[in-house]
């Protein structure tokens, strides 16, 4: 009987872990090995640092696709970081039941629920020179916004779109974290006469600190990862490249001659992001600690 239970257990472990291990080996590990080996192999099959030199060379020159991509990537990264506290504040206001909070919550989340292609196409039509948004801003509010927005001002426009549309993306996580805060804690705070500001900074943030640090950590891991909407709006035209999109584009367009440079670039980006993540985690651990409740 005991032997049968033991066999069942082994069978279960094999069945449960087979997909995980086979995927890790076949798709993840082998693609990492392939990437590293190609980045260090020259056209003649010999070991080389050449692709890294080429990638770095493209960075250092003025106004190349990659130097522009680097600047844009940093802009997207900073925007992503800024969006974390902004969305947290928005979630808190909704959590505290501002007038129409249910409607606000649904509307903020809706853009991340519906098709990104739909939202991007809608936005494109909305901000056309003869579209309703520009008409409203220029003729009703007299703001004199120069058009077209998706050419010379492509990156700024896509960043605005990311902020406008993407704010609600974090909301479910903030809500999940806030909803677990015991009501008693907030009730006692309220009885002690604590206002919303003190409640937000001294109760909410410390209690949801693990969620906050996780969000920041994911942003730091993805420090060079911005690529999403560029494909939908400009496909890299008008100097809207980012590093990640440049790599994606090499794969998407099947530009095999760029593969080794893209892989070398990817390795450089991965290596550069590791200390950023470690430093970020150290910084966050120094300023906050997890509270058990």
């Amino acid at each position: 009987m005991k032997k049968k239970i033991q066999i069942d257990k082994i069978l279960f472990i094999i069945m449960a872990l087979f997909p995980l291990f086979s995927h890790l080996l076949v798709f993840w590990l082998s693609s990492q090995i392939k990437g590293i080996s190609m980045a260090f192999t020259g056209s003649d099959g010999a070991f080389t640092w050449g692709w890294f030199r080429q990638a770095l060379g493209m960075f250092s020159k003025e106004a190349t696709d990659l130097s522009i991509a680097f600047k844009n990537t940093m802009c997207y990264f900073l925007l992503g970081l800024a969006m974390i506290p902004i969305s947290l504040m928005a979630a808190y206001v909704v959590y505290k039941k501002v007038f129409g909070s249910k409607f606000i919550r649904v509307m903020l989340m809706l853009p991340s629920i519906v098709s990104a292609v739909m939202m991007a196409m809608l936005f494109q039509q909305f901000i056309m020179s003869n579209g309703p948004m520009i008409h409203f801003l220029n003729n009703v509010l007299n703001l004199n916004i120069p058009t077209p927005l998706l050419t010379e001002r492509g990156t700024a426009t896509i960043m605005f779109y990311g902020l406008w549309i993407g704010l609600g993306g974090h909301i479910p996580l903030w809500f999940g974290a806030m909803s677990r805060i015991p009501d008693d804690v907030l009730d006692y705070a309220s009885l002690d006469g604590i206002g919303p500001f003190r409640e937000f900074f001294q109760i909410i943030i410390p209690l949801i600190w693990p969620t906050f640090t996780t969000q920041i950590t994911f942003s730091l891991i993805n420090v060079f990862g911005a690529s999403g909407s560029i494909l939908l709006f400009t496909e890299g035209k008008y100097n809207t490249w980012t590093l990640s999109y440049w790599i994606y584009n090499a794969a998407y367009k099947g530009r095999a001659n760029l593969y080794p440079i893209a892989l070398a670039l990817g390795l450089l980006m991965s290596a550069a992001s590791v200390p950023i993540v470690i430093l970020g985690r150290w910084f966050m651990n120094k300023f906050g600690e997890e509270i058990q409740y």
Partner: protein
Amino acid sequence: MKKILNRVLIYFNKKTIVFHILGTILWIWVLSLAAMLVWGISISLMDGFEYSLDPMKLLPDIKNIKISNYLKAFTSVEYTIQGSKVTFLKMILNTVWYAFGVTLLRIIATTLAAYCVSKVKFKGRLVIYYIVLFQMLLPSYGSDVSYLLIIRKVGIYDTPGMLLANFAGHGSWFLLMYGCFKGVSDSYGEAAKIDGANEFTVFFRIMLPFAKGMITAMLILLLISTWNDYQTPLLHLPSYPTLSTGLFRYKTIAGYTLDVPIYFAGLLITSLPVVIVFIIFNKTLMENMTIGGLKA
């Protein structure tokens, strides 16, 4: 009326001025989003000629509302790529098998792996946990290219076999499921084992029901994200355009000949299923989504 006025006064007395300012900003924010979405629906009901004459027009002529645009999307939105005709119905079919296939395989693999690592006692399970964590946290930027080369080598590139590449039990969902199973007391499983249940019975009949909420949240969010995914199918399944990739390509191919109202009707049809799913399961999602140390 007096009752409503009283309620409004009580509401305003309770909150500070900063709170009202933040609330107003949020309202402007969501109203601008709502305006764009309503405008999109409005365009989808316009006549193509009417829209081209005045793209600033906010609402269609009441007498000339074109609900038929939604039917026309099924017949008009089509293009030819490499000699093969891609119709709207084909895009729907591709989206259905891709979204449901990926979601189902990921749920099966993730639930099994997370349960096994969190609850079944065997040597090395912590090592597996750290491997998954390491794999998740390791930034891997060049992988678009190397992954493409691997799936080509495996022979699943641009075939429905790409679903196999999603039969993966790792990633952030693994951690959420792991946290979920960790939160269930071991005593349930142990009691069942004393009664003669094996690991399969404990998993399927005792532990899975505890993870129902998390599995539902995972099902909905994965379904929504794969339904809307455009980057992966564009790169790995070029011959099987889903609604997202197909409509994106259709716009590029159509160029200036694009009938915007019919195109927008097509885009709205694309989003309708996910919006319905979201409305139905909104509460489940909110209750089950937490990450980073707190109970999942």
